[in-house]
């Protein structure tokens, strides 16, 4: 009685009831595929966010209003003046540029086409350099446009295509943003989705124009600060802190009404959010794998009950307990291993597709884990029915009708 014979018996047992075996396998397949795919989606989202933040540049510092408003009523909004005060060769030698940004949304209308732009940013020309945005066609708006509050706009590639179609040249066209006419002066190069928001679906206009026609004169959404180099980011951060504390009247030890994040911190915040998301997805997938495993137990119990007589015959003609145990364990393990293999294949194929805007990135360890778990499921969930079969007494089993 060797291992190969045990496998042969197991294969014969499984192929005797193909539909049932296939359906049981399906449970494991779905579980394993779900684990691989969902972890890949979560990982893909993190990767996209990391890439987009890396794309911002490592020397970017982001200043935004503190959540909850800092010191209650005394909290001051971030203003354009705050932003300009940060560019100070004496007080802040490590700050190269600082651009005030107001973010809003708007509906763009051109002819019959209407399109909701997810981000309309009002800012100053330095913003483009700070955030590494390059032009595909046309030109950027200038400081003069900002001073004159000219209604000109630079569109992201996705936005331009959505409004004007892929064949039409957007530059020079007039588009209505919430019924206010803007002239398109340039189109940006594609940068890609960040996973949570599409960096290519933007419209960037002079801050003055956005404030007086779309967003109003409230607090800035952020100040995008460019440090002189990646190494001077922390120096720039403390300089910014000093300047803003002075301007906002925040005493030492007080709670600031703004927050400063460099790209690394931004990355950490964003990735911790997607990690939670990934863990949730993996948990859901793990549950489906568990359900698949219970399916294996269930079917193996049915199989054992159905084949009690066969077990009796085998025992009567001299099958030792270990051989019966091995046969049914092998059946369960083969079911789940086969399901696991199929699940790995489906997971890998599925992760080739973009899922809700996220390009899944397969984590090799998740494949290994899901596959190993599926093998263990066979052993673990199969051992109960197999043990039950092995413990049957031959006379009882033979008498069973």
């Amino acid at each position, binding site marked *: *009685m*060797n291992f190969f*014979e045990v496998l042969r018996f197991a294969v*014969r047992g499984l192929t*005797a009831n193909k539909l049932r075996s296939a359906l049981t396998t399906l449970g494991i397949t779905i579980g394993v595929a779900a684990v691989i795919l969902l972890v890949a989606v979560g990982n893909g989202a993190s990767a996209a966010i990391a890439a987009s933040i890396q794309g911002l540049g490592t020397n970017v510092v982001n200043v935004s209003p503190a959540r909850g408003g800092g010191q209650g009523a005394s909290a001051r909004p971030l203003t354009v003046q705050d932003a300009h005060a940060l560019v100070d060769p004496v007080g802040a030698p490590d700050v190269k540029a600082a651009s005030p940004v107001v973010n809003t949304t708007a509906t763009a209308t051109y002819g019959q086409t209407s399109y909701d732009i997810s981000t309309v940013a009002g800012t100053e020309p330095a913003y483009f350099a700070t955030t590494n945005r390059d032009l595909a066609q046309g030109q950027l708006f200038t400081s003069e446009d900002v001073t004159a509050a000219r209604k000109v706009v630079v569109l992201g590639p996705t936005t331009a295509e959505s409004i004007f179609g892929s064949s039409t040249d957007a530059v020079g066209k007039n588009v209505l943003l919430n019924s206010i006419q803007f002239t398109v002066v340039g189109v940006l190069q594609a940068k890609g989705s960040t996973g949570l928001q599409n960096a290519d679906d933007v419209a960037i206009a002079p801050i003055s124009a956005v404030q007086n026609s779309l967003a109003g004169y409230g607090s800035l959404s952020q100040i995008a600060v460019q440090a002189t180099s990646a190494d001077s980011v922390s120096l720039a951060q403390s300089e910014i802190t000093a300047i803003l504390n002075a301007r906002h009247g925040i005493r030492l030890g007080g709670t600031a009404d703004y927050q400063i994040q460099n790209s690394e911190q931004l990355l950490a915040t964003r990735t911790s959010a997607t990690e939670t998301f990934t863990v949730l997805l993996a948990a859901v997938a793990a549950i489906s794998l568990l359900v698949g495993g219970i399916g294996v137990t269930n079917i193996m119990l049915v199989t054992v009950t159905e084949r009690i*007589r*066969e077990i*009796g*015959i*085998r*025992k*009567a*003609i*001299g*099958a*030792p*307990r*270990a*051989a019966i145990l091995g046969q049914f364990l092998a059946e369960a393990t083969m079911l789940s291993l086969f399901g696991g293999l199929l699940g790995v294949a489906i997971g890998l194929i599925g992760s080739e597709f973009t899922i809700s805007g996220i390009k899944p990135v397969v984590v090799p360890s998740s494949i290994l884990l899901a596959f190993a778990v599926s093998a263990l499921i066979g052993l673990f969930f199969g051992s109960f029915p197999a043990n039950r079969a092995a413990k049957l*007494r*031959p*006379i009882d089993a*033979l008498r069973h009708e």
Partner: protein
Amino acid sequence: MNPVIAVSGLRKTYGAGETAVHALRGVELTVWPGEYVAIMGASGSGKSTLLNMLGCLDIPTSGQYLLDGFGVGKLNERQLALLRNRKIGFIFQSFNLVPRTSALSNVELPLVYSGLKRSERRRRSLAALEMVGLSDRAKHLPSELSGGQIQRVAVARALVTGPAMLLADEPTGNLDRHSTEDVLGVFDRLNRLGRTIVVITHEDEVAAHAHRVVRVDDGLIVSDEVTRAVGAVS
């Protein structure tokens, strides 16, 4: 020469105390190699229990059982399985072939459990099928065979390990007259070739083929007569 079966003072009691059932109450039986023994008895006489004892499917409460010289009483489950595999060829009333498995594979089954190589298994299984006259049905599934053919496959399976005895439990109970003749003919032939056969039956027709008839009643052997000399043809 060792007797194939040497049973003395064999008792089997199910349950205990007031409700105890004494299925066997001190059976003495010796079967020598080459014998063809029919064990007869009404239902409830204890013959099924005796079969379970002789077949090493169950262990006696007390008494001694030597199977081909091996004491059965002290063996554990694993050793019993081994003994069943090597020493006994079972033939059941309800055939008990493994379903959806070819005749040849069914015959091979005991050899698989005794760990024989594939080619050797095949050779011996084909020889056993040949002996029961079914070599042309080797690839057929049980569902494609008649009752008599199925039982002959079962006989081949019992033969294939070269056991000390064939132990048949009502082997013709589920067969029509023609198939019964078939199977009993195979038994006769095997016995002439020197096989020891023990048949449990309640049919006189089956017992008529044996050399010796043992009657069991109420857990005891009540008669044991040699009806024909060993080797004589009925």
